[in-house]
Structure formats: C-alpha cells, structure tokens
C-alpha cells in the first residue's frame, strides 16, 4: 500500500518533469475511490497556489532590488544573505499588523472586498497551459473564461473604495474602474486577433498552433509576425493598465490619492490586495506568454529536452521583469492622457491590427520564393503606417503653449 503510494507519487513527479501526459493518472488509481476526486482537485489547485505565492514573494524582492539598481541603489540587503529573506520579513510584518476598520465603514462590504478580489484572480490561473501536458482546466472557451473572471475584479475594487467611506478611496476606485474598463477593450481586441488566426478560444490549442520553426530555427511564435508584434505591444500596454502597474498606477497614486482604494486597509486585508494585484499581473503575463510568446515552446530546436514548464515560467518571469523595468522608467500618466491613450490610440490600432492579421491570413497562399519576407514587410507597413500617423497626430495636437488662466491673474 505504502509502496504503491510512494511509487505513484514518484511516477507522478517523473511524468510532470518529463512532460508526459496524464500525470495525475499515475497517482489516482492507487488511492481509494472516495478520495480520488478530492485528491485530483488538490493536485490541480495546490501547485498553482504554491508556485504563484512563492513567485509573488520572489517578485516583490526582485522588484525592490531591480528598482534599486535602476536608481543606482543597492535595494534590500539586510534580511538574510543578499536580502533574500526580505519577503518573509515583509509578510510577517503584514500579518502581525493591527487590522483597522474605519468606524464609519460598511463593515461587511469592507471585509468582503479583498476576498472577492482574490478569488477571481486565482480562478484566472485555471485555464493557462503551464506545460505540454500541464493545464488545470482545458476549457473550450478558456480565453473567455479568463476575461470573464478578470472583469469581475472591478466590482471588488468598487466595493473596497465605496465601503471605506473615504473620499480618496472612492476616487481611487472610480479611477481604477474607469481605467480597467477602458483598457479591457484593447486587451480583448488584441487577443481576438490571435483567436481569429487560430480559430479557437482554448489557450491549449493556441499554444499548439505556435509549434514548429520557420527555416528550422525561427520559432513560429506570433510575436514574430507583424500583427503578432503589434498585438503583443498593445496587449502589454493594456495589461500594464489592467494590473494597475506604473505608469498606469493612477488608482493608487500614492502622492495624489494616498493609495486610493487601499487607503483604509491594513494588515492581512492589505496583504490580500497586494497579493491579488501581483497574482493578476502574473495571470495576465501568463496569458500574454500563451497568446504571443509561444507558451511553453522552446525558443530553439535543440532545446526541447528542457521541460516545457521551464520555458513557460522563464517567459513569465521575463514579462514580469519587463514590467518592473517599465515601472522604473516611465512616470505616471494623467487621467486624461490615460483615457486618450486607450481610446484614441490603442483601440484604433488594435482594430487596424485585426485587418493586418486578416491580410496575413489571406496572403498565406502566396508561394513564390521570398513570399514570407514580402508578407512580413506588407504587414509591417500596414500596421506601422497608422502607428506613425496616429502617433504624430496625437502628440502633435497638443503643442506646449503659454497657458492662459481664465480666473487667476
């Protein structure tokens, strides 16, 4: 019995590491039938929570270190060697802090808001393919599921802002909602491009479509096509805004809104918000990796012996690093700039990108030598032209002029 169990666990781990299908099938048959569904669920959920919670801890450290280096500082280096235990110290601090509820707050809603935020954020991880045979839930409409649970986080932010009975909280929540709704559209439209090209909403199949190499060494990832590149850039900008990261961190703008909807939260609830924010960032980066960066595929033909989930997480961490890098570089936008960027720039570009993708799709029948290069240039021109025109029209429109004050003298 015990031997069977150990054997099963060993086989399961081996199947995970060596990318074999049906890893859970190795362990489940040795268990009593009553336990099987429970264990199966735990086996799907526990690794997600474990892995992404540790990734969260790691990212907070990396972020502080990276930002420090970008600003020519050392970053945290006191707790443990090179400061690697800093996240543990931060976590302990968060958990032992006093939990303050404002006297006039709406107690129930104030309590429920962080929970309502954390749950959908975690749900979003269910449909991402982490490896060749590692997907917790292979839904036919997986992408739709992802965006649906993503959309339901907005209500929790409203709950947090409204229930705190604090004007900064409410303003922050309003800004957050306006921002999330605005950027959801370019985000979805740029993802729809991929859906259109692959003809499926299942992330698993989208990744499978990106298998193989052109000319034996260029991976067949969508980011390397003109429409895919444009889509990836739009997707990244929109996902920065969706996860409230700098330069789109207006809802939390510490200097203007003293952290917006988080103002009245402390201790564990604040930690939950913080966790949900980072988890949201991971989920959306994971989706970006899945849609445009080839998911778990290796970048070069000779590297396929490395387990596929290593590639997935490598790409995910690179995306996160890109986010940190952007945070260290770009200053915060104003509200009007933020909305203009979404509606006047990203959305038209995303729509044009749909057309570019269609052109790419219909020129696939060209077979003359060098057709790929011609198609590439055509696509690049089709998306690059509007980009330059729109960009110059939008940035040229507001030249710096002497400001005229209407009321002040």
């Amino acid at each position, binding site marked *: 019995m015990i031997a069977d169990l150990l054997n099963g666990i060993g086989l399961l781990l081996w199947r995970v590491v060596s990318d074999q299908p049906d890893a859970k099938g190795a362990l489940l048959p040795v268990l009593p039938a009553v336990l099987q569904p429970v264990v199966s669920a735990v086996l799907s959920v526990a690794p997600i929570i474990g892995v992404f919670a540790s990734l969260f801890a790691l990212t907070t450290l990396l972020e502080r270190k990276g930002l420090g*280096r970008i600003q*020519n500082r*050392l970053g945290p280096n006191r707790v443990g060697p090179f400061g690697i235990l800093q996240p543990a110290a931060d976590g302990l601090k968060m958990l032992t802090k006093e939990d303050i509820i404002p006297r006039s707050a709406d107690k129930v809603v104030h309590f429920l808001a962080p929970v309502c935020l954390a749950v959908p954020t975690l749900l979003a991880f269910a449909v991402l393919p982490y490896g060749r045979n590692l997907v917790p839930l292979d839904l036919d409409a997986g992408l739709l599921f992802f965006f649906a649970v993503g959309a339901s986080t907005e209500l929790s932010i409203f709950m947090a802002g409204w229930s705190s009975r604090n004007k900064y909280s409410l303003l922050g929540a309003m800004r957050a909602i306006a921002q999330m709704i605005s950027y959801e559209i370019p985000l979805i439209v740029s993802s729809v491009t991929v859906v259109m090209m692959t003809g499926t909403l299942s992330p698993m199949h989208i990744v499978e479509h990106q298998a193989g190499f052109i000319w034996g060494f260029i991976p067949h990832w969508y980011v390397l096509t003109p429409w895919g590149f444009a889509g990836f850039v739009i997707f990244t900008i929109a996902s920065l805004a969706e996860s409230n990261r700098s330069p789109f961190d207006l809802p939390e703008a510490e200097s203007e809104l003293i952290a917006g909807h988080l103002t009245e939260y402390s201790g564990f609830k604040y930690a939950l918000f913080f966790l949900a924010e980072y988890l949201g960032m991971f989920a959306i980066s994971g989706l970006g990796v899945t849609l445009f960066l080839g998911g778990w595929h290796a970048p070069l033909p000779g590297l396929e012996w490395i387990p596929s989930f290593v590639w997935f997480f490598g790409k995910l961490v690179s995306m996160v690093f890109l986010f940190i*890098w952007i945070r*260290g570089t770009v200053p915060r936008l104003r509200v009007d700039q933020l909305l203009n960027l979404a509606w006047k720039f990203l959305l038209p570009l995303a729509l044009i990108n749909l057309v570019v993708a269609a052109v790419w799709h219909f020129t696939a029948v060209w077979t003359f030598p060098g057709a790929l290069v011609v198609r590439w240039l055509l696509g690049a021109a089709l998306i690059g032209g509007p980009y330059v025109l729109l960009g110059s029209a939008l940035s040229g429109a507001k030249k710096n002029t002497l400001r005229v004050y209407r009321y002040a003298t």
Partner: protein
Amino acid sequence: MLGEGIIKGMAETARNFLGSYHDAARLTTVEFPEDKIPAKESARNFPFLVHDGEDAMQGLRCVACQICEKECPPKCIFIIKDTNKKPDYVGKLQFQPKVFDIDVSVCMSCQICVEVCPFDAIKMDTDFELGGSDRFGGLLLNKRRLAKPNSYYHTIHPTEAAEVDGRLAAEKAKVEAKAKADAEAKAKAAAAAAAAKAAAQTTPPVVASTPAAVVTPAK
C-alpha cells in the same frame, strides 16, 4: 515618433541597472548603520541647550527667560523657572531653568527658538538617531538630555560656533572692560576721595575736628 522617448528612457535605466553592478561609483547611497555620510554644516533637526565648562547643569547658558517657549510655533518647549540664581558667563546672577523640556515628536525644526534666544543658549543639533522603544517619554527630552557642551557645538557647526564664541567673548570683554573702567573710576573716585580726605586732614585741625566731632556720637 511616438514611443521614442520611452525607448531612450528604457535604455538609460538599463544602463543604470547594469552599471550599478560593476561601477561602485554610481551608487549614490551608503549602507547606513555602518557607513554614515558626515552631516553637512548647515544641517539641523532638533534644538539642544549649550553649556560652558564641565558641569552641564552649572554651565547652562539658558536663563529661563521663556522667550523661546512663547515663540515656538507648535508650543513644544516647556520651561519652569528655578528660584535660585546662578552666575552667567560674565558673572552676573541670572535665573536658571528648573525644568526645560522639548517634545521632539512635536518640534518642527523651524529654528525659531534659536533665532529669538538672546543668550545663545539654544542651538540646532544634527543628531538624528533618536529612535527608541518608548513612544511618548522617549521623545520628550529633558534638560539633562538636551544639554551639550560648547565643544560639541563647535564640532557640528564650527563656523557658527566660532562666531557665537567671538560675540560672547567680545561682550564679555566689553563687560569686563566696563567693569574695569568702573573699578578704575571707582578706584579713582576713591583715590580722589582719599586724596580729598588726606588734603582735608592736612588743613587746619579746627575745620577737621568739627565733622569728626559730629560723626563720632552717631556711631
């Protein structure tokens, strides 16, 4: 073109990121408790009381005039006058504070107390490591904690301290000169009086004996 600036900025931050690993000169910060940047001469945070000489309580320059207490905008100075007087730096008897507290959790480092003190008794300190485990008492500094020697003042604000010392010395010199002049004048007057007396004594005894005869019964 749109986005050019962002790319340039990203290149700059990447240069910082990589540069900070191999070029220690880029790092603008020091590792605080071990390394410290010496305080600038113009730095200031909270006030302290200057004392001259060895005995802090005896040497306090403060005369408990309470001007600073009245002028402090957040009212964080609290003074009670002592009834005993003690001599100040020129030797004149002055009041002294029995209690002199500053609540540095309230103080806003405005330096007004320093500006208004006519006795150069209160000056701004540069010590910023005031952390403690007592939230209320630990930040209420009494006169023993506030008192610091003049030599310390010289180490933190050399220029200013030299100027103050010069001024005090000049004042002292003036007072002493005045005292000396007074003494001399007194001596002169005394001498003159004595001379007059002597002269009087040399006058015919008839005149001199009369006042003596008048004075003597009064004794």
